[in-house]
């Protein structure tokens, strides 16, 4: 666990919005994939972003690293705004400092490039011109992620899923980023291999002092891995707290439903457990009764209206 006493926000997301417009038979339709989302990620911590598919967690990650152009809002990294027009210098600033690990280890590696080319490409872009130097650093990085230097000349199809994800991690880390956005890095892997990748990410986080934005839908893993967790639902960040607090004090009904749905490897308590279901219609958000963010206690944010705030925080534990 990182100490958040000297909280220094490495990444600050302010009112980030990402809308997609579709045009079907001339009728325009807007999908608010991410709507007015704000959070901070402190230096050295792992921030988990959870929610079901389609809630906008991946879009948030992609908008931060500028794979998408956000519709609105601002993102600051290390005090500098990285939204807005991307000039060459700003682009370099973003790509130098933030790297991304993708969900699908098959689709995210170019099948026609060798491992050395895939991992070394980032170095090339970052101005390491000497091929011998590049090759040396690629091999060092392969060792760090638990592969061997002989793997450098092979192609992605020769590797298993877990090994491919290691290649993806090596590619992200070789440019020496301060922050990693890991978008469901383990959901495509087999159970026994998932643990390998989680342990690797944990070790590398220590070694390189990384800050990680961890996007996932498996809550047990997110709880295990993250210091703080943000819960997203339909483009909104509905609750944000430290992982301990979130699991002890889930306040938003969606968070409660999500937590109650986590499968637990215990047949006796599983059979007794009461599941909670979330009904998005239960909110009364009409006629000026607009929800907003409330800090229910230090570090615990909740998206609700005034009346809901009272109702939900009634029996909050410390």
């Amino acid at each position, binding site marked *: 666990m990182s100490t958040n006493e000297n909280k220094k926000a490495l990444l600050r997301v302010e009112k980030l919005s990402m809308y997609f417009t579709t045009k079907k038979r001339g009728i325009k339709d807007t999908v608010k994939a991410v709507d007015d989302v704000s959070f901070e990620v402190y230096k050295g911590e792992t921030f988990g972003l959870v929610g079901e598919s389609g809630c906008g967690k991946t879009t948030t990650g992609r908008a931060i690293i500028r794979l998408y152009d956000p519709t609105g809002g601002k993102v600051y990294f290390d005090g500098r705004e990285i939204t807005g027009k991307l000039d060459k210098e700003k682009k370099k600033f973003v790509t130098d400092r933030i790297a991304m690990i993708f969900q699908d280890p098959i689709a995210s590696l170019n099948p026609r490039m060798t491992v050395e080319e895939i991992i070394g490409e980032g170095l090339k872009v970052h101005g390491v011109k000497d091929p011998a130097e590049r090759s040396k650093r690629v091999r060092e990085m392969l060792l760090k992620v638990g592969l061997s230097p002989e793997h450098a000349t092979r192609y992605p199809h020769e590797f298993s899923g877990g090994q491919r994800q290691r290649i993806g991690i090596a590619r992200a880390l070789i440019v020496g980023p301060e922050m990693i956005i890991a978008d469901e890095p383990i959901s495509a892997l087999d159970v*026994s291999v998932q643990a390998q990748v989680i*342990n690797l990410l944990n070790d590398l986080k220590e070694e390189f002092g990384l800050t990680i934005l961890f996007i996932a839908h498996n809550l*047990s893993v997110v709880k*295990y891995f993250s210091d703080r967790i943000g819960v997203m639902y339909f483009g909104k960040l509905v609750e944000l707290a430290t992982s301990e607090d979130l699991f002890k004090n889930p306040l938003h009904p969606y968070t409660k439903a999500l937590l109650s749905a986590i*499968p637990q490897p*215990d*047949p006796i308590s599983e059979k007794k457990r009461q599941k909670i279901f979330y009904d998005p219609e239960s909110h009364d958000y009409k006629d000026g009764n607009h929800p907003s963010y409330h800090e229910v206690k230090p570090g615990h944010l909740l998206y609700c209206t005034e009346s809901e705030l009272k109702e939900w925080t009634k029996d909050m534990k410390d």
Partner: protein
Amino acid sequence: MDKPILEVKNLSVSFNAFSGTVRAVRNIDLELYKGETLVIVGESGSGKSVTTKAILGILPKNGRIDSGEIIYQGEDMAKYKEKDFYNIRGKRISLVFQDPLSALNPIMKIGKQITEALILSGKYDKKSAKKRAIELMEAVGIPKPELRYEQYPFQFSGGMRQRIVIAIALASDPEILICDEPTTALDVTIQSKILELINEMKAKNDLSIIFITHDLGVVANMADRICVMYAGKIVEFGTAEDIFYRPAHPYTWALLSSIPDLDTKEKLFSIPGAPPNMLAPPKGDAFAQRNKYALAIDFEEEPPFFKLSDTHYAATWLLHPDAPKVEMPEILAHRIERMKEANGIVD
């Protein structure tokens, strides 16, 4: 105990591949009793799906049953011709697939897909089939079934599609339902609803279920008995409590301790290496190479099943009376202790 309604004896399945013969399932025995949920767990490639495909006679063209019997209703289905399956498949034994989108025909209305199954069962004509289909849709929790009846699969969400697939599987009032990773493609909240639905349908329709998954956590609340498969063999089987509270095979230990639960703080136990190549299954215990508890004999001779209790068996030499005593990984021992404490169990 009663006689099992489905019995698999010494089944072996192999595939002809370009590079040789893949021994996907090797000499497994299974019994399914009336009204129970039997869970088969294992990683990809462990042979769990192949086993159920062999039962239903839907192995791909390059696959074949090498040996063994599949006894159902007093007959050996392993010897069945394609024609013989017509009265079994989808009628007595139904299947729910992993991916609900590819299991449905994208250009056929949902209602038609359900009534198709009903009319094929021979018990319904067009009109009564529609009525029954709407009842089924209602039973699996589809709101506004009359409206949904006229819609296409793309107008349904993933969870709703899986509900439709379950409705189709139940249309002919089967005796056995085989669920092949039915919730893997779904979100946790939807997953728990679908699991609940399957449990509910099981109680209502008096089903026996074979449930395949790679995630032990998913099945804790459904399983009556669990088989753990690795590299085409069953390595341990027992009741859900046997497996979760008294696991005995190192592979089961590894599977259980590689997933974190909500109180896990320790470093996760990760299984080194990768599953063996089934073109040439290793000699001895297939898990030996990845097993830090492996004994010399594990590399030489396949372990037989050792009996732990009337319901619980495991195939590992560690249970041999002469074997050195080893403890399960600490992370797992701690969890089991926590579980016992939480549920007030004393040994």
